[in-house]
């Protein structure tokens, strides 16, 4: 069971094949993925900016984190569901794509980040707010969590966009055999039948 055969088996599942070959469904799924990045990725960005003390500083960290928590979770579910549909329906094209692989690794890092920082930051906001009131700024662990989150999520978004730009290395095409007498081209001249005029 090579990676190639597993990925082909995945993308051959009925409804995934339908998505891949559809006219409107695939773009609609991708557009939903993108819109949820805009809405919910933005909420993640703002939480991180708050943790860094750069935005919404008059609102307590507790209020910021709790106020959007439900929507960040709903958004995460939508993003991941759409992403799974997009990725598995085109698995053959993506499994060897390094940008896709890095993106999947970064998504794993989201889990690691949550595991590390949820008890210390996201579920500990009252203590952090108390310390901010005492010292005037949030403690360093909040800044570390924010920078980690920013790097991971911006990395995910950029890798996601870059997936489309990867070109798998292809062996050079064999030269087309041509009768020497009919070869009207000078040596080294391009063999295009027309000249493109912009």
């Amino acid at each position, binding site marked *: 069971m090579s990676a190639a055969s597993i990925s082909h088996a995945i993308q051959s599942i009925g409804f995934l094949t339908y998505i891949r070959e559809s006219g409107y469904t695939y*773009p609609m799924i*991708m*557009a939903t993925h*993108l*819109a949820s*990045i*805009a*809405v*919910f*990725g*933005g*909420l*993640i*960005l*703002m939480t991180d*900016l708050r943790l860094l003390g750069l*935005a*919404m*500083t*008059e*609102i307590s960290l507790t*209020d*910021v984190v709790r*106020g*959007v928590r*439900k*929507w960040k979770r709903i958004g995460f579910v939508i993003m991941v569901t759409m992403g799974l549909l997009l990725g598995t329906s085109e698995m053959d094209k993506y499994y060897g794509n390094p940008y896709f692989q890095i993106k999947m690794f970064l998504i794993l890092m989201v889990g690691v980040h949550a595991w590390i920082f949820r008890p210390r930051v996201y579920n500990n906001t009252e203590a952090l707010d108390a310390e901010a009131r005492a010292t005037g700024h949030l403690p360093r662990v909040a800044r570390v969590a924010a920078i980690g989150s920013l790097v991971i999520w*911006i990395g995910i*978004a*950029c890798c996601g*966009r*870059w997936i489309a*730009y990867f070109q798998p290395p292809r062996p050079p095409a064999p030269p087309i055999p041509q009768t020497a007498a009919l070869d009207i081209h000078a040596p080294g001249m391009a063999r295009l039948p027309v000249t493109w005029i*912009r």
Partner: protein
Amino acid sequence: MLIYDLNANPLNSNEWAFPLTECFHITSFALSVGTIALVDLRLLGLGMKHQTAGQLYRDTSLWTLAGFIIVIFSGLLIFSSDPIHYLYNEAFRFKITALVIGLIYNYTIHRKVALSDPSPGLGALVGGVSLVIWILVVFSGLWIAFI
């Protein structure tokens, strides 16, 4: 002016330029639309209930503006890479229409209503319309590549 040697544009000749510009475009619209969504969630009564809509608007408006500046700048760069193609693309035309409507709406009705701490009904209407417009902008932005 829109007809020029497209190969002279670094977005077309440099391997990294175009995707990098798009990444700036995506991150900055996440910033703008996200901050607007924060205010809209409050207007819809769905989140951030400990703050008033006006307070949230005042706290986020600079970030929204910063996002808009970068998104429009990067958008113009992307447009410059193939102007005639984008002008003829229906999804692009729809997107720019929705963007202009969204920008005007955001800085007139949305701003006024958010700052005035509205009743739940009016707030929900204004916030809902705002979210719909910006989601349409993002949707049509993606569709540029598919039609």
